[in-house]
């Protein structure tokens, strides 16, 4: 079974502070991991995926298979980063189903 856990429902930081949104997963094979973001009144959109190993809007995430984690990090948070963040897992095979965590609401205060 696939499972994604985001332990923090809410996370509040000040502008310029580092931010880390935690994500742990459970999957027996080699999954693909993603971070999705939903800004206020906008649709869900892909932020980054572990395969591409890129930094988007200053965010990075490293897949740690030993700890089964895929935490999202940014060294200096900006007010425009305030949004709902979802970690998601896609299992192997031809079923491209995404399993989402419950999400973390990030608020960056001025």
């Amino acid at each position, binding site marked *: 079974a696939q499972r*994604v856990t985001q332990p923090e*429902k809410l996370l509040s930081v000040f502008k310029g502070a580092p931010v880390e949104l935690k994500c742990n997963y459970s999957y027996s094979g080699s999954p693909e991991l993603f971070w999705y973001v939903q800004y206020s009144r906008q*649709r*869900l*959109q*892909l932020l980054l995926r572990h395969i591409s190993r890129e930094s988007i809007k200053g965010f990075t995430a490293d897949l740690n298979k030993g700890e089964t984690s895929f935490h999202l990090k940014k060294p200096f948070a900006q007010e425009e980063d305030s949004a709902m963040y*979802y970690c*998601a897992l*896609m299992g192997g095979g*031809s*079923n*491209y*189903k*995404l*399993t*989402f*965590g*419950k*999400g973390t609401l990030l608020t960056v205060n001025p």
Partner: protein
Amino acid sequence: EAGVAQSPRYKIIEKRQSVAFWCNPISGHATLYWYQQILGQGPKLLIQFQNNGVVDDSQLPKDRFSAERLKGVDSTLKIQPAKLEDSAVYLCASSPRTGRGYTFGSGTRLTVV
């Protein structure tokens, strides 16, 4: 490139009534998904189509929910009869055959009263 289109944006119905949602995926995307997002939770897959065939409907409450994808393009999701616990945002997404390039629509917010 046009995105995934969904309608209506909002719907309020009474319990035991019926409701239908429509989705038009990105042109050329073979795979279409319907997700249910209940307040405070992440999206949950209800059904996945590959062209016009069902790949996964294991989490679809088939006694009241149905979906179809005629001609492998547009899709409709129906609830009949609706229950209070069906209040949620219903998201449609599409992707090319390989699962890359997942794109979500804006969703339909359903309130059952």
